[in-house]
């Protein structure tokens, strides 16, 4: 059912090898700079999924699973990778929920986001830490996990 490597051209494989890391780094950059510039958890996540999907189209899920991540197939026909995606989605959701619950401990309403300024740090000087970032990270993982589950499972057909 699933594709193996070799069906696609060498050109596309070579391009993918160069492009995919760049896309992933860009995705993470988008996630981090989302608070002050265009970007954010959702966009970063979708871009990251696009990178994975590219790997999948060009190399196949088996390759991704065996060669890059070093997971052996469990023989049931479905990919163990998909299980990891599912976990990633759940963990993302949990991060988002837990970060929204945290303010309750300080007597603030559910989902209150705060901003902390750390001063006099070496190298950085002043650093702004927004608790919204934890929520954004949850969004990122939930969306990456959710979309990869879909892509992996649909592509696996």
């Amino acid at each position, binding site marked *: 059912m699933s594709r193996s490597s070799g069906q696609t051209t060498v050109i596309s494989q070579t391009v993918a090898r160069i492009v995919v890391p760049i896309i992933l780094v860009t995705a993470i950059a988008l996630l981090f700079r989302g*608070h002050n510039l265009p970007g954010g958890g959702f966009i970063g996540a*979708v871009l990251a999924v696009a990178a994975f999907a590219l790997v999948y189209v060009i190399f196949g899920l088996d390759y991704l699973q065996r060669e890059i991540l070093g997971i052996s197939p469990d023989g049931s026909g479905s990919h163990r990778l998909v299980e990891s995606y599912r976990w990633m989605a759940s963990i993302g959701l949990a991060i988002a929920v837990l970060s929204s619950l945290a303010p309750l401990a300080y007597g603030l309403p559910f989902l209150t986001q*705060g901003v902390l*300024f750390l001063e006099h740090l070496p190298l950085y000087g002043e650093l702004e830490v927004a608790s919204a970032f934890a929520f954004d990270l949850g969004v990122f993982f939930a969306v990456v996990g959710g979309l990869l589950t879909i892509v992996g499972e*649909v592509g696996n057909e």
Partner: protein
Amino acid sequence: MQPTPEVVLAVVFLPFLAAAFTPAVYRLLGERTAYFAAAVALVTLGLVTDQYLAGAHGTVSFDWIPSLGISLAFYVDGLALLISFLASGVGVLILTYSGGYMHGEPGQAKYYATLLAFMGSMLGVALAGDLVALFVFWELTSLSSFILIGHYTDEEASQYAARKSMLITVSGGLFMLVGFVLLVWASGQTMAIEGTTYSIPLLIENAGAIREVLTASGLFVPVLVLIGLGAATKSAQVPFHVWLPNAMEAPTPVSAFLHSATMVKAGVYLVGRVRPLFLAENAAVLGDWTLIFAVLGLLTMTVAAILAVSATDIKELLAYSTASHLGLIIGAFGFANSYGAEAGAFHILNHASFKAALFLVAGIIAHEAGTRQIDKLGGLRKHLPITAVIAVVASLSMAGLPPFNGFYSKELLFEATYYAAKDAGGIAWLFPAVAVFGSIFTFLYSIKFASLFFGDEPDGLGHVHRPPLAMLVPPAILGALVLAISAAPNFFIDALIGSVFGDVSPGEAHSFSVHFPTELTPYVIMSIITIVAGAISFPFYDRIHDAINAILRGPVRANWWYDNFVEGLTSTSIAVTPKIQTGLLRTYATWGFFAFVALALGGYAAAGVSLPAFSGFSVTLPIVLVLLVALVGAFAVDIAPSHVAGVLTLSIVGFMVAIFYILADAPDLALTQLVVETLVLVIFLLVLDRLPAFYGDAPDRFVSLRDGVLSVAVGATVFITVLLSTNASPDPLLKEFLAARAGVPAEHGPFFADFGGGSNIVNVILVDFRGIDTMGEISVVVMASLAILTLIRMRGRGETQ
């Protein structure tokens, strides 16, 4: 005295709590769980007694949904206490009795847990002081009785009965809810109440103002009918009486509980509860209230009594008789005079005492004689002497014979009908006539039940065992109660019923008394007619029984309507389903788009929106170019020869939209559009090689035309929507607030939580100001992925079939 909040809360929630622990208790105690449950009921009874002895009267309230003004309020008064006494007191006896009756039956843990929950729900209904709380407990009784009636889950008859009771009582409850909502609305319209209220005592306090609002808006009768539907379905009034006889599929203790103290009493309770709300002190003799409830009640009393005579099964007989007696109570409450309220209040207690006893007797007969068929039973006195005494006492009370307690309340009903007829005259004379006519049948079936213990034994009757003590003591206690009330009716009236009478009638004293008739009044003559006519016709019981059964065919039976209705619904849905669910995505898409267009355009038309005036194109050259490319892409999609080409050209449109966003100064949107478009393109390409090269056969002309029209309509709808939504700019206050709050404040400490602290306002809105939306969205993403996972995996295993 104000009721004690903790005690009232315990009364309602202790049974639920115990129900939660019942499965664990069952592992420890096994069949003796019955006595654990009975002990819980006993504690509840003790708590109710405590409040009664303390003279509790008033409201206790706990916050529930404060933003909507809904509270978990409990209102303790005479009526609430009476029903609580019945639910918990009869509960003790029923649960003890179950210890003997349920010996060796399956599913006991479930049985006791549900019975306790049932009792708790009923206590909740009785004590509820808030319309929403009342509704919730009301439907909980329906739910728990559904489980109890369907106790024997494998049996067809149980399933049918459980479904039937659920369907009828729950749908009635929904009508009632609409009535409640209208009441709350009315409370908001009157100056007498500040804001709106769900509080029952507050509504009753301002009954006059509420009535005025309802009458002025023409909603008085609709609200009466809606609430009446709730009461009528629950209390099995004609024509909703059909579920009650089927409910006897439940184990007998459940039937006894259901019929005497709980569920069906809820409807009667509701009528009593809202009576002072709808019935003014100086109400007309034949007002709307009387016309609805007295007619409904007397009709039910008569029809159900006739049906009871037609019954062939002792539990069926008792079930119809319950409906009949509930009709009596509701009918009595329907009369605007004080006798009606007296009769209703008193009969609640009397009916519970004799009907619970009779059901438990019926359980003994069924359990020990092995049959419930009336014509197979007789002469049981020799085998079941104690049971016979109980049965005779309770039957005579049910028949309304003096000096038993049933006589007094029936006499009060006769008085109520007589005075109503005397005051109104004319057609109102039908009230006493119907009351007497129905009572004759009541007399007949009551005597028939008692006669099972006398006469000869039929041939088929085998050896009849003695019942165990656990099964004998509860009915004996109830029988003794019947005797006690009969001996000293005024004691019980002073202690319990007097205050109930005051609670259900506006502006009445909290007391009345009954006495054995010593002179020949019109209502004594009515009683005499009833008894004499009953005694004369009793020898012809079998003939009357056959005659009724001969008439009851086809559409004359309410059951016929119910069965045909349900059957019709089922067959219609079976016929319609293949047309709607073809399994073709194309069909769903067509109907989905059609519904979208119809709803959106219909909505705009209904809201009377007008399109903004056209003010000329004010776009720059780059935007025009981008849009032109998009247009070319859109045409290319239509003529694309294959799926791949179609998807690729479609993505041209998407990317052009992204560029449009960039040109329109929306980098966040453009970024999102770009990455999503890319991902969608990749996913499309992944899926495409599994699809056929193209649709294959060209669809016929009609389908093409329909699809074309539909797609133009969808496009037009979206176009109009965009025009309308961009024309209506959002509240500037909101925009200013968000813009002002998104960044870092000029003056700030090392930590702050009231500002977003970011310069990308879109992302700050997403994760901070509207974080809960985002959380909902990512939950949807995760759920969608799980759903796809499940769908695809299960298809592989062939489990979707």
